[in-house]
């Protein structure tokens, strides 16, 4: 079947440019269901049936919902559930996507990384970016932090040595109400090629 490409990288999501995002949500119900989908989350393959029974992936389920409710990966936080705040950001094939605006059935064959997948599963050692957030106290309440780290991870994946301006641009879709932004910028720069 033909898959709709509806996933938008966070960096391109600008405020006010929400029409496309909203349309996606409205068309959820219409999306055609595949029988089974398979997605790799943090290196682990999940085969899932599509349908409306409680053990199945409902075509209306967002990736955020599947990660949090079906797979129990609650590290991905949902704040606006509306594509506006970036707190639900995860990586899809290395690119940042808003999991609250992405339908799970569109993720067939995709490789998803969530905040739980960043630290070393064997040793528990933190990713250098996570460590930089710890070292710079780049959070206050910490609710926006998983999304912030995943956006920054995608940014550093594309641009290992960003300038301060590029960091700010890359994180422009992420809302931090506590205003930990200044420490976040420092942490991301410290974890980048330039910081080392």
């Amino acid at each position, binding site marked *: 079947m033909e898959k709709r490409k509806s996933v938008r990288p966070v960096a391109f999501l600008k405020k006010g440019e929400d029409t496309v995002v909203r349309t996606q949500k409205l068309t959820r119900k219409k999306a055609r269901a595949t029988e089974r989908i398979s997605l790799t989350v943090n290196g682990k393959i999940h085969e899932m049936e599509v349908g409306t029974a409680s053990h199945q992936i409902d075509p209306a389920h967002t990736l955020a919902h599947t990660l949090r409710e079906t797979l129990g990966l609650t590290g991905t936080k949902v704040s606006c559930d*509306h594509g506006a705040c970036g707190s639900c950001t995860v990586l899809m094939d290395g690119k940042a996507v808003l999991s609250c605006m992405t339908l799970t059935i569109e993720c067939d064959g995709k490789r998803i990384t969530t905040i739980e997948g960043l630290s070393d599963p064997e040793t528990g050692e933190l990713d250098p970016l996570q460590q930089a957030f710890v070292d710079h106290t780049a959070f206050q309440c910490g609710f926006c932090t998983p999304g912030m780290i995943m956006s920054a991870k995608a940014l550093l994946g594309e641009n290992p040595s960003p300038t301060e301006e590029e960091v700010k641009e890359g994180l*422009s879709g992420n809302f931090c109400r*506590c205003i930990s932004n200044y420490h976040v910028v420092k942490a991301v720069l410290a974890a980048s090629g330039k910081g080392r």
Partner: protein
Amino acid sequence: MASPYRFIGKTTPRKDAREIVTGRANFLADRKFPGMLHGKVLRSPHPHALIKSVSRDEVMKLPGVEAVLTWEDVPNWKGGTPRCTRILDRKVRYVGDAVALVAADTEEHAKEALRFIKVEYEVLPAVFDIEEALKPGAPQLYEDFPGNVVTPGVPFFGPKNLKEVVRGDVERGFAEADVITEGTFGYENMPNPIPPEPPGVVALWEAPDSVTLWVSNQASYMDTVILSHIMERKIQPRTIGGPCGGSFGSKYMSWQVQCYAALLSRATRKPVKLVLTKEEHLASFTLRPASRMSAKVGMKKDGTVTAVQGTWLIDTGYYSMTTQSQIAVGCGEVQIMVQCPNWDLKPVIVCTNRNASGIVRGFGGQELKCCLIPLLSLAMEKAGVDPFEFLKKNFVRPGGGYFWRDGIWYNHRGIDHTKAMERGAEVFGWKEKWKGWLKPTAVNGPKRRGIGVGIHGSADIGEDSSEAYVRLHPDGTAMLFSCVTEHGTGQVTNYIRMVAEVLQLPMERISITPPDSLINPYEFGPAGSRGTYAIGAAIIAAAEDARQRLLELIAPRLKAKPQDLDTVDGVVYRKDDPGVKIPWKAMAVDRTITGYGRFDPDYSLVNCMMTFIEVEVDTETGKVALLRVVNATDVGQIIDPPGLENQLNGCLGSAGIDSAIFEEMILDRSAGRMLNANMIDYKWRTFPELPVIENVVMETPFPSHRFHAVGVGEIATSPGPSAVLMAVSNALGVWIHKYPVTPERVLKTLGKTGSGKGGAA
């Protein structure tokens, strides 16, 4: 000078840092319980109506639905001050008011069920403006509040609780003045604090009179106190806190949300989770009160204020739980800011048909000053007084006094904040930049720059009571019992830091109990910047008490008096001969030692924050760009450098500085609907728009507790908004008096175009 401290003032990772950066911090929405149901609220589409009937026959047949509750099914629990607002009422008073509650096995089923509840309303006329609400014949929200005037006063603050500022002789004050100005000023844009985590709860009702609530609030002990009042003192709920995903005051209370879940659990005897959606959060949860003040001030040529007289109208929306408290504190804070002998300032709280106002950082004082400073500015302009000099001159000094929220007079026994103000002015370059009133600091084609300054200070740093225990264990570890939740300030780690310093024990060896009201003593919670002094003092006292008991117990073993002993790293030793020592294990392996500490309110210390602002206004587009912010404060002693810096940077968001630039809730004043109740239409500052912030922090020891520190986190948002108005007026060369300074307003002020209306105007 080298620091005398081993832990205080040192940068260490936050205790919960690893949980936060790995996504393992368990916020409320992440919690699941066996058999858990999901609660949803059916909300009124009308701003004012009587419910004639509710039909739920169809709903109960839907799959998964386990309970539907309406006003007829629930006990007479009431919130508000005084308590007049029923949890579910026959009358709805704003668009979004709760009409029915549903519990179902999944969130989808609960949401679906809402569509099948049929409600018949008798629509009533509604009122959305403070002054309209006061007019004879205006729609009445409550029988208890004739004329929509909410009963003033806060019994909790004592018999003389502050309801107004009336003292001296204003007539004489005006007679002594060189200049007098008057007018009406507002701060009515109702900025929304919007913590990222919406209000939510899980409730489990087990026996007829026993309910446990897992809460995500700022003050998890107070939830039990507040709920027990609402539940008519027949039930003592147990509340268990967890990480709080932001609050900024607003999630100090979520009594309605908590009661909804409790009632649904009472009906089903299953755990019920109820978390507001972001839209509900913005449109139906509390936001900053709206203020409008008509006042007159008298001033001498040297900037001495001789009299302040006026009426301060506060729109609290459809109920008030804390607005009277905010007024009491605001009235205290305004006297701290303006040491004037003659006052006649009368607040009036008015209810209107929109969602309620509640606690937000700045707690009354920010609202009042945002109205008063523009008026004072007019007088300063007439008198030719520099606003920095004015604010510095009029702020309370040691020995100066004020009536605080309890109606009692206090003299500030703290430090002189002048030094921090002057240092801030120096860093900002105030003297070089200030060109006089309504004069830009620079003009570059259509772009004009201007500066402004604001101030805030509060005696709430020593408000209310706190209690704590510290328990020492024979293995050389300690546990702090304190009902505090981490809501972003980093204070939980700092309390461990304080215990570590008193006991000279590494921070890794100290743990803290979960913020559970069942196991911890009374705690008012971190609010009003009280965390450092008030909560800190109780915790320090508990640690000192435990240490003293330890030394007394060990003394005979070391053949010494307790005062000749000290302890470090879990070992007690003789001060005169450190080689004579014994580990804590000597207390006996089957013993623990518990110390108790308590803090009683102290309103005689005042914190202070002065904020300098530089803006650039584009006179072609009307856009106001915030270029630079300098916050100047004196905290006595820095406890946690990065935590403090984070808190001060918080001056922008959570209904702070940006409430003067673009943040506002836009109420459709014909239908009573909030038009921008989502994160796309509600404007917030993004990374690329961050201004330069410099934080000037002085450390003049305060006579507070043994670490001589006071808190300032709460007040970081408060001086900024009026400073923005001042800066924009100076940049443009004409007064602009409405918040926020949207491009439309700026262009209108310049006579260029448009209606000049922000949504709230």
